[in-house]
């Protein structure tokens, strides 16, 4: 499916599908990356999500008719299998109850040991589905269904910067301290959002993410805070 809808006076949303799947997310990502690469001055913001891309366009460059023509020319409806997978990014994580406040809760719900949870979580390769909620907050999928855990009923008022969480079958790192309801399983010392790094966000839509368990010592030595 491909559907264009008027989202506002100067934005159009492209729907690629009406349900979330790996294939659909890939289709969105490939089109997002190719639209972004065009570097077209008339495209102000390109915001990809699970099944859609929102385009904020400049009315001085495009009318609605023109933008639809332009998108029709530039959107691909088949995922390009020859296109390489996204950039592989490794993120070091100190998985421990000391910083992973909900490891025990997941262990009880999933009837698995904490060691098994860490093993399952860190052996999966994740794809960055979309970025939002907070600057640099990357939604990663998909978490192994054995450890997929619903959000906390009542969100915590403070989750420390760098915390790694699980919500259903998604995972994410809090780039800054924030309130939140995800199940926290570990922490990274990396800055997920930094105004001084290229692109500002450590992760971009389409990246492939792999978590690497590290010890408490390694975490502290690299600037990690307990």
């Amino acid at each position, binding site marked *: 499916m491909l559907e264009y*809808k*008027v*989202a*506002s*006076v*100067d*934005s159009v*949303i492209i729907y690629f599908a*009406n*349900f*979330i799947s790996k294939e659909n997310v890939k289709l969105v990502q490939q089109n*997002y990356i190719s639209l*972004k690469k065009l570097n077209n001055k008339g495209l*102000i*913001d*390109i*915001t*990809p*999500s*699970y*099944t*859609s*891309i*929102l385009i*904020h366009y400049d*009315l*001085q460059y495009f*009318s*609605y008719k023109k933008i639809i023509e332009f998108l029709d020319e530039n959107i691909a409806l088949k995922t390009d299998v020859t296109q390489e997978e996204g950039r592989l990014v490794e993120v070091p994580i100190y998985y421990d109850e000391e910083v992973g406040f909900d490891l025990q809760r997941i262990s009880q719900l999933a009837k698995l040991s904490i060691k098994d949870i860490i093993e399952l979580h860190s052996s999966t390769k994740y794809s960055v589905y*979309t*970025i*939002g*909620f*907070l*600057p*640099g*907050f990357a939604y990663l999928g998909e978490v192994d269904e054995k450890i997929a855990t619903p959000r906390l009923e009542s969100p915590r008022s403070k989750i420390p910067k760098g915390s790694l969480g699980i919500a259903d079958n998604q995972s994410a790192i809090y780039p*800054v301290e924030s309130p939140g309801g995800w199940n926290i399983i570990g922490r990274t010392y990396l800055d997920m*959002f930094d*105004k001084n790094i290229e*692109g*500002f*966000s450590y992760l*971009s*839509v389409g990246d492939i993410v792999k978590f690497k368990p590290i010890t408490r010592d390694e975490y502290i030595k690299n600037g990690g805070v307990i």
Partner: protein
Amino acid sequence: MIAGGLLSIVEDFGRFGLNDKGITNSGVMDEYAYIILNKLLRNPPNTNCIEITLGGLKLEVDDTCAIAVSGADANFSINSKKGDIWKTHNLKKGDLLEFGFAKKGARIYLGVKGGFDIKQELGSNSVTIKENIGTNLKSGDKLKFLDNSFDGYNICLKKEFIPSYEDNLTLRVILGYQENYFDEEQIESFFNQAYKISSQNNRMGYRLESKPIKCKIDGIISEGISFGAIQIPKDGQPIILLKDRQTIGGYPKIGSVLPIDCFKLSQLKAGNFINFKPISLEDAQAKMLKFKQLIP
């Protein structure tokens, strides 16, 4: 700064091209008042200024400069004497600027010739408090400006271009988006009832209150959100999303407000009333293009 007031922040048109990293556009809430401010000062269009919400800012000038004030009328005074707004003023060292509480309108813009000397963050001077980009001005803060030429010119805006900031407003809405998620009678009542602006109104969005609008679905797959989008959350009370809105979200939307009308909405306060009327996309685009002609 002697007093910062409720919320006084440096803004410009905002930052663009970063919604895909989760960074909002930010920028001045009322672009009309901002564009006029820089025109009065003969500044380039994107020159930064201070956006004062409701008033309360008090500051002392420590060098000669030319300033202008636009937006809401908040008993602006220079050295305790009433100062005109929508007008430039030439100031000297020691002059005291003071804003009371906005009687009509909600946002005041204070600009200086040449702008304030502040390093851009992510391509803009716009403060976004929720993203830890910049902070609210407070007592003791200093803002440097570059241009201390005292050129003596005095410009004021023609009366016919000064907005009156009424307490009631009709907002024009572009449909064509997700209105299929709403029954016809729900859309009808959306357009026929008056909405009160709730106390939950800020730079992210304005929450409204009236008879709830029912949506056929609970939520949608999270997607990008446009400026002016009208979200209908589960409680049926619309939220109009503005400059500091979240970049993605999962509530259904009944339409989106014409940006020109969002600027006017930004001058309303809790307790004011609005209604909605539809506008065609062609008409809306023509009105926006005409508005953009204001920018030199």
